[in-house]
């Protein structure tokens, strides 16, 4: 707990319950762990912006590896944010570390989830995840993690973090990959080869052979078409601007990042150069405020080339679009200098700058093909009339916006619950005996009495 911070709340009651006096009552902080008055000394995002600078810069492990002397002058500082969520790795070490087998990677969509009913609180996943993305709930004694908003994803909706990002920075899409290659790719000798090794696991959905193989192994057709339109596939494989975070952890992370072009244009303009000129921009990449070597430690295990390539593409796009906006003649040389053509450049610009909702999030809805143990060809039993996938009003298309129901369970035709009963008969309800005060009959403790069953 001391390594994190003690959760706290404020004693708001004091605001209204304090006796009349000369002083305005305050709401003093109270620890949420033991209820005592506490002094707030840390919290979520406590160190954001410059807050933790002096204390944490010295401990920055990436900075330690970087040889450039990074200037820490505060008046020159600008903020560079790195939002981190669970990477839903291809080779998830949290899954491998779980003694109970409670954490699993879903076959259909690769989302890594904790089965709360199987977690026994061994806490190996907490130390097992190099991204520190598993949390221990000290009230329930269970591990919790990002769920990739799987109920939303199943309904074809983006995750909440993506949808609500005001910068519209997040993109979601399908990537096809070959799971048989993952083990090999994760064990290449040199850390710096990991980025390319992971690229090697990804499959090209436009390749008819890949599409056929995917379909043969049960990937629904709309997933393959979604993979073709996937913005993530474009950013990772086509334009090669997105890079994995800390590939040297060898878990094959699946949340990729586009490295930032720090504010160089103004800096260049300040020195009397044309800040938007491609040549000048390229030259400036190596003297970015955030050194390329620092970014390389973040995204490519220290190999500066992919980072430089990505930044050059972004810089080229910038120069290209300036010409277009000023009505100057197109200079195909700019695109060519980074290995693209002008049409591609336009498309990349569209995706990064203009893309609307449907282009940023290409999410096929819950797979209609056989899921689970049912074997093939059984369709989606959840959507049969009265099945658990059906909402009370009978429309499953807009299932997501319907009132919450118990999660649909399995390809198993459970018959609709009787009127008023949410639980299909026969499905065990959970009762936590430890919360039972010993009086009466808690709901679900015993199977319903016959007369209650109607």
């Amino acid at each position, binding site marked *: 707990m001391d390594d994190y911070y003690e959760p706290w709340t404020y004693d708001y009651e004091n605001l209204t319950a304090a006796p009349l006096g000369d002083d305005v009552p305050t709401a003093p902080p109270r620890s949420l762990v033991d209820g005592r008055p506490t002094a707030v000394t840390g919290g979520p995002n406590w160190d954001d912006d410059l807050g933790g600078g002096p204390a944490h810069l010295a401990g920055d492990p990436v900075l330690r590896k970087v040889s450039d002397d990074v200037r820490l002058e505060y008046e020159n500082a600008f903020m560079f944010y790195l939002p981190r969520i669970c990477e839903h790795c291809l080779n998830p070490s949290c899954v491998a570390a779980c003694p109970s087998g409670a954490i699993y990677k879903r076959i259909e969509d690769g989302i890594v989830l904790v*089965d709360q009913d199987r977690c026994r609180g061994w806490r190996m996943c907490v130390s097992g995840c190099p991204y520190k993305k598993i949390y221990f709930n000290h009230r329930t004694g269970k591990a919790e993690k990002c769920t990739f908003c799987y109920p939303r994803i199943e309904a074809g909706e983006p995750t909440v973090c993506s949808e609500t990002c005001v910068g519209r920075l997040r993109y979601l899409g399908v990537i096809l990959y070959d799971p048989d290659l993952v083990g090999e790719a994760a064990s290449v000798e040199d850390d710096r080869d990991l980025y390319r090794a992971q690229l090697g696991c990804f499959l090209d959905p436009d390749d008819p052979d890949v599409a056929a193989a995917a379909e043969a192994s049960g990937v629904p057709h709309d997933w393959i078409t979604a993979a073709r339109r996937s913005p993530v596939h474009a950013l990772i494989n086509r334009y090669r601007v997105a890079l994995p975070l800390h590939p040297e952890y060898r878990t094959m992370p699946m949340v990729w990042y586009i490295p930032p072009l720090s504010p160089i244009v103004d800096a260049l303009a300040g020195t009397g150069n044309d800040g938007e000129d491609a040549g000048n921009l390229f030259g400036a990449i190596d003297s970015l405020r955030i050194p390329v070597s620092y970014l390389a430690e973040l995204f490519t295990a220290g190999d500066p080339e992919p980072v430089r390539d990505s930044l050059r593409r972004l810089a080229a796009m910038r120069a290209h679009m300036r010409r277009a906006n000023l009505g100057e003649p197109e200079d195909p040389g700019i695109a060519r200098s980074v290995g693209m053509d002008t049409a591609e450049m336009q498309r990349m610009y569209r995706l990064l700058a203009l893309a609307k909702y449907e282009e940023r999030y290409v999410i096929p809805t819950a797979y209609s093909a056989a899921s689970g143990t049912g074997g093939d060809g059984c369709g989606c039993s959840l959507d049969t009339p009265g099945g658990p996938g059906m909402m009370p009003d009978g429309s499953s298309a807009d299932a997501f916006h319907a009132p919450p129901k118990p999660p649909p369970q399995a390809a198993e035709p459970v018959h609709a619950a009787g009127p008023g009963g949410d639980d299909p008969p026969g499905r065990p309800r959970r009762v936590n005996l430890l919360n039972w005060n010993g009086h009466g009959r808690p709901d679900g403790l015993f199977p319903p009495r016959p007369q209650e069953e109607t």
Partner: protein
Amino acid sequence: MKHLNITLWGVLPYLVLLLFVAGSAWRYRYDRFGITTRSSQLHESRLLRVASPLFHVGLLLVVGGHVIGLVVPESLTERLMIPESAYRANALAVGGTAGLAAVAGLAVLVWRRLRTRAVRISSRPSDRALYPVLAVVLVAGLVATLAGSRSGDYDYRLGVSVWFRSLFALDPDVTAMSDAPLTFQIHTLAGMALFALWPFSRLMHAFAAPVGYLVRPYVVYRSRGSRVDPGPGSGNGGRSGSARAAGRPAAASHAFDGQRRG
């Protein structure tokens, strides 16, 4: 007295066994979410790091000793030409040390549970019942082991063990137990209380010992549709054929190129 003896050593064990089995089954079926070690590491880790392994290792050895002591009849060790004195010396050395370790570990665990406010507050009523019982079991057992071996007057393998085995023959030998010294009786009674508490406390976590981990594949794949299979612990699915040719994680890519817009 006779009736009391029959109740304690002839009837109670079966009631406890029933409660233990039925309670565990019920808990497994209706409250799987509640089965956890409920670790308090987050609240206090310095003492826990030492005490918990001390307690558990000691305890596991003690449990092993019980299996040998209660299940293996004296006639068998005699047939194997293990002299009684060697058996006793071994039981005292290993069992006594393990018992001491378990008691010492438990003492520290209880101490931190009472003295660390956050740990105390996170304790549940079941803990309040569990720790005293656990302490009585361990201390009585340790006293019986140490005292018994010193005077050497009571051979539990001809008394308590006989009773224990007779329980499973459905023909409880009540006198074998009622003749035992008081420490043994207390130990056994508290032990029964422990088993009765088992399904309703954190002790359920002992059933979750992750043996399946030894044999399962590293990465567990599971289909969206598959229900939790009733087998405890180990992962199902595994690196199975279904994930063969082309998996399909929805990947997220974040671009945080905010300043390009600003």
